[in-house]
């Protein structure tokens, strides 16, 4: 066996880890490409530790390579090597050495950690009902099988009781799977769940925080520049865990203002005949789970779902993805992605696995094709389409 140990192979691989993952620009969930100050501070802690690990790695593999190279038995001698039983000083050395290295790392970690868990939010001005109020930007994030809800309370969360996540007080804005935030401001999050444990994660903006039923966990995010930032539920939460994604849409503050204004309004009565027929179907079949503000505000009966909630559809069209952020609502050219939406209404569990009979996920509604056309027409009246660049940015494929 005259072969050097392929330490170089592994060394190469680890080098590849750092480079390849660092420059994978087509990886929207990449953890090493921070897009805001919070994730950047995590990154600036991670990078040096990767380096330290890399150095230790090189030392260990270097030593291994030397052993393979130099101390291999080449049958040139019968003599026994020197019988060293140990070396107290060396051993104390490599006990204390790593301890010191770790102690130094610990200091930086603690600084970064407490920084990550503190908040310094400043108020944002938003127009609510025509008057400008200042809002301590904090959004309530609610996970349930298998989609996310985001609730905005512009009077602040101080008086809001979040302890019973299945009966949350009415909010100013309720949206699903796409959270909209202004750029340049730290946004606080209050994360909870209506059923099992989920985990909220937008890698470009911050690390994860679990959504635990009956607990409200604080977290925060911040984006430098406008854009669509992808996320994924990362705590195993049952059947469709893999299809529980989300996006955060960061807008210039002015655009955010406009968005808030458009979201505050209730649904307008549909005009066309088909859409009106669609609304009837909706009120008959869908309204028992879905809320459309102005139509059935508080009447949805949660009894049909374990989580006691389905996505609020008032401004459905202002989102670009749906059903846990896995389907595009629009074609790349900005027109409605009709086949997918129809398929969803025809048989949702076939599109996204669910336990509808166990009251988790959207059931197959058994609508006729005509009804589906009508409902689609109705849904199209719910909210206005977002800016084209947002549509373009959500297209993953």
């Amino acid at each position, binding site marked *: 066996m005259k072969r050097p140990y392929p330490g170089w192979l592994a060394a190469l691989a680890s080098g590849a880890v750092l480079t390849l993952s660092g420059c994978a620009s087509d990886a929207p969930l990449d953890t090493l490409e921070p897009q805001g100050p919070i994730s950047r501070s995590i990154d600036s802690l991670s990078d040096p530790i990767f380096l330290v690990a890399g150095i230790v790695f090189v030392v*260990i593999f270097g*030593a291994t390579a030397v052993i393979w190279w130099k101390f291999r038995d080449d049958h040139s001698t019968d003599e026994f090597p*020197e019988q060293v039983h140990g070396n107290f000083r060396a051993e104390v050395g490599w006990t204390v050495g790593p301890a010191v290295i770790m102690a130094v790392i610990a200091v930086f970690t603690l600084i970064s950690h407490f920084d990550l868990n503190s908040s310094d939010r400043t108020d944002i001005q938003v127009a609510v009902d025509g008057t400008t109020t200042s809002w301590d930007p904090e959004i309530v994030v609610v996970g349930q099988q298998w989609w996310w809800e985001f609730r905005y309370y512009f009077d602040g969360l101080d008086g809001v009781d979040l302890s019973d996540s299945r009966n949350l007080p009415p909010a100013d804005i309720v949206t699903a799977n796409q959270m909209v935030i202004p750029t340049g401001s730290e946004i606080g999050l209050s994360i909870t769940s209506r059923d099992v*444990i989920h985990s909220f994660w937008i890698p470009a903006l911050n690390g994860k925080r679990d959504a635990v039923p009956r607990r409200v966990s604080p977290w925060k995010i911040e984006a430098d520049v406008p854009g669509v930032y992808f996320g994924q539920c990362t705590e195993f939460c049952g059947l469709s865990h893999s299809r529980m994604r989300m996006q955060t849409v960061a807008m210039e503050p002015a655009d955010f203002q406009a968005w808030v204004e458009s979201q505050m309004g209730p649904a307008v009565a549909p005009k066309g005949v088909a859409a009106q027929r669609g609304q009837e179907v909706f009120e008959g079949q869908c309204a028992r789970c879905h809320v459309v503000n102005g139509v059935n505000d508080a009447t949805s009966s949660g009894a049909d779902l374990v989580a006691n909630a389905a996505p609020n559809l008032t401004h459905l069209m202002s989102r670009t993805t749906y059903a846990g952020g896995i389907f595009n609502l629009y074609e790349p050219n900005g027109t409605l992605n009709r086949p997918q939406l129809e398929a969803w209404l025809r048989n949702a569990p076939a599109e996204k696995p669910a336990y509808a009979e166990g009251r988790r996920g959207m059931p197959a509604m058994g609508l006729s094709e005509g009804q589906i056309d009508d409902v689609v027409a109705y849904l199209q009246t719910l909210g206005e389409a977002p800016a084209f660049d947002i549509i373009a940015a959500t297209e993953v494929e």
Partner: protein
Amino acid sequence: MTDTMELEAPARPLGAYTRPKANTGWRDWVTTIDHKKIGILYGAAAMVFFVIGGIEALLIRLQLATPDGTVLGADTYNRVFTMHGVTMVFLVIMPLAAAFANYLLPLQVGARDVAFPRLNALSFWIFLAGALFLNMSWILGDAPDGGWFAYAPNTGVVFSPGKGMDFYAIGLQITGIASLVSAMNLIVTVLNMRAPGMTLFKMPVFTWMILVVQFLLLFAIPVITVALFLLMFDRNFGSNFFNPEMGADPLLWQHLFWIFGHPEVYILILPSFGIISEVIPTFSRKPLFGYPFMVFSGIAIGFMGWGVWAHHMFVSGIGPISVAAFSVSTMFIAVPTGVKILNWLATMWGGRVRFNTPMLFASGVVSMFTIGGLSGVTHSLAPADTQQTDTYYIVAHFHYVIFGGALLGIFAGFYFWWPKVFGHLLSDKLGKWNFWLMLVGFNMTFGPMHILGLQGMSRRIDSYSPGFGFEFWNMFATIGAFIIALGVLAFIVNVVMSARRARHEPPVGPDPWDARSLEWFTPNPTPVHNFDDDIQVEALDEFWHRKYGEDQNGQVVRVASAEEVCQDGSATDTHLPSPSYWPVVLAAGLPFVGLGLMYTLWLCVPGAVLILMAIYGWSFEPVDDPDGPHGHHNDHGSDEPADDGASGTTPAEEAPVV
């Protein structure tokens, strides 16, 4: 366990309870209470489950090879990865460690058997009963689907209404009993049964590491038992331990699970550390560098392992203070582990290293485990872990430590001790194929997972969409997994071929590797009675010291051949404990009780009958069989097993308690 405790022993054998005599055939295997055969049984069973767990892994890899995979549905996928994790941890690595511990520990301390041979058999059969029980869930169509750490409330009846999580909760309780019984047994064995002169600090490092592991099991198993009991009560009797609707806190499960779970990962790795601490000095022709440091660092790892559990919960919302404390405590686990790695390197350094297959695997552990350990350290920085947790970066970490650490070490042990157990060597040539295929396949499979994880690929997802940059490395990893499978296949081929070849070849002789510790005093394969005579131990590595001395220049010189030092296995006067039916009968009762709790309580009846019958039979079993193979009692003092019913210093009418 107390409930199996025999409270009394009869003054005279009752005719109906004669002990089995079979020495050959399947009867022998079922009733044996010989630690060596039990070790082999553990090993064989675990390897079967390794292939099952491996096939599950291959299914995972096939599903993930391409985006939007359709090999398995979401539901099946969730069951497959859950069972893959459960199988590999509880039914493969743990019992493989038990295989080595059972076979070698008594030999390494120079004992006739373990302290309680019948309890030892009981442990194995209970393990097997639990393992079959868990896998029965596939046949009954409802494998567990909550992930191996089974976070509440996703595993409650509301969210997991099938029977799967019941199989999990009850099955792991059963295997837990096995681990606990065997832990108690081995602790007593090490403390009480050592050969004359063998002080604790003359014990081989393997024995030490196994001892530490038994203490970890002793204290960790009850914790998961509590958790599993509570889960079982929640699911079957409507209690509210993990039901948030009634005001429970789901984090309680996480704490209980990981208080067990983190010590558990050291339970997985330390046996392998022990194995390579035997292999490396042997093949480097040098004593282990810094024996006391090796022992103390093992103990330190065992202790520190209890103070870090919440590093699995950095993002659960346990509060910044707790996270900070656990983050820092976790970092310092790198210290004792680092001592081990560096001491192994120092052992090899300056040696004359023979790279036979066992040494290849051992050297593989040193380097591959380091990669996994280093990624572990990157997780321990809580802020960094918020990005890493629950991604493939974690999957990469734990496969590097478990596959690259625990499993490669176990393979080193296979190749090293194969002649001890079966009397012939495994082929070195095929062994090298085995090693290189596994090493290359392993790095191809799990290396890219670092990249995938940092690119944001979550774990436990049955599919991913194209466009996230996951395609290439997933396909790459899947190819790697099949190369690992080839490596495993090479091992199986090697086992079969070597056994065939050995039939035409002379036996391997007493000391194929120029080894160092006590087990090599016995001939290969080890005779039923182990040692012909007690060995008076004077030094660490007693066997080696009997072969070598020093000349006046301090040079090592051979003073005796292995043949001279080894015993010839010819002793015939050793008393051998008789086999027993009852361990297997008792174990067979447990799955019935489990099924009864799940389906209909009536099924508990046959289970209870079997168990009671076994306890009764166990208690009234004649202490010794007069027609047994060896009627002679010789006085062996404290290294005589206590529950064979006939230990030398135990007068027959004074039967032991257990």
